[in-house]
């Protein structure tokens, strides 16, 4: 086995960020937040559609755990970009639950269904105080943690 080699790298980005001009970090963050807000409406609609697809999967109980995981992971991806912390935490619990079920090769649609109902609830209560919704997420993690990783 050969010895590791260490390479000193100089990024162009380092010079670029320090060039005169540009804007303050505060202004850049504000502008990004404004740009992002323009996409929030469409994102919320599509999140609703994805939760709807999970609801159908729970009703039919024929989908593979991989499909449930993928749908949950996509919700987490989009909600995460819009900093929907509570929805993300709930979705993370769903992904973890399904991942553990995959490991144990055992689908438990009841626990998945509870998660999906909670996602719908959290999506509709999006504007409410996140602290008050934390107990819902804590309850989901209690269900997930019943199954060993």
């Amino acid at each position, binding site marked *: 086995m*050969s010895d*590791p080699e260490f390479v000193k790298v100089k990024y162009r980005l380092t010079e670029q*960020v320090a060039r005169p001009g540009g804007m303050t970090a505060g202004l850049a*963050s504000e502008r990004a937040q404004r740009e992002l807000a323009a996409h929030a409406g469409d994102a919320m609609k599509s999140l609703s559609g994805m939760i709807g697809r999970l609801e159908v999967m729970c009703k039919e109980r024929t989908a593979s755990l991989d499909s449930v995981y993928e749908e949950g*992971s996509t919700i987490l991806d989009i909600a*995460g970009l819009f900093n929907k912390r509570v929805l993300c935490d709930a979705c993370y619990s769903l992904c973890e639950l399904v*991942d553990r079920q995959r490991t144990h090769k055992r689908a438990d649609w009841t626990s998945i269904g509870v998660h999906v109902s909670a996602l719908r609830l959290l999506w509709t209560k999006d504007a409410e105080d996140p602290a008050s919704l934390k107990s819902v997420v804590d309850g989901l993690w209690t269900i997930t943690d019943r199954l060993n990783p």
Partner: protein
Amino acid sequence: MALDSQIRINLDRSVVLLVDDNPQALEALTAMFRGFGVRKQFKCGSGAEAMHVVKTQELDLIVIDSTMPDMDGYDFVQWLRREAPDAAKFTPVIMLTGHAARTVVEKSRDSGANFVVSKPFTPEVLLQRVFWVAKDERQMVVAEGYVGPDRRFKNLGPPLGVKGRRKDDLSTHVGAAKDPNLDQSDIDMLMRPAKVQL
């Protein structure tokens, strides 16, 4: 540690590649980087498209989602660090992650991305990581099992006397010797091979 909001950042000449298989997430990322002042962005919906852009364009930063069908973010970074053209091999990468399934935890650790940002995050956090990348002075390690930034961080903790330093943290001060110095013959004895009976 939050980024000082008064720090000036100029990204208007930076060329950024954004990779996410979800069109909505890709649009949201594009919007964020537009807000940061990045004018030239390449958007790709798959690892294969991103590979083509890496081969044909000069990039300053790559932001990629970890979870994608076919070629995920980890595989892409492994390809970039090992097989991409030399000029692009060490392009800084920020990896965005959602849930890390058990099967990809090891891949994630060994992928070679500069920084990993877990979702959910705000534009402020993403900008902070861009700034960290720009200030990243870690060397690149090229080894058989890993190619990427040196993963060893040196953390000496707060300086002595500063609030927050724990009692059991190691001191950065060696202090005075407690015992007399060894003489040369003692040192020689320590290094001399000794015959042992097995």
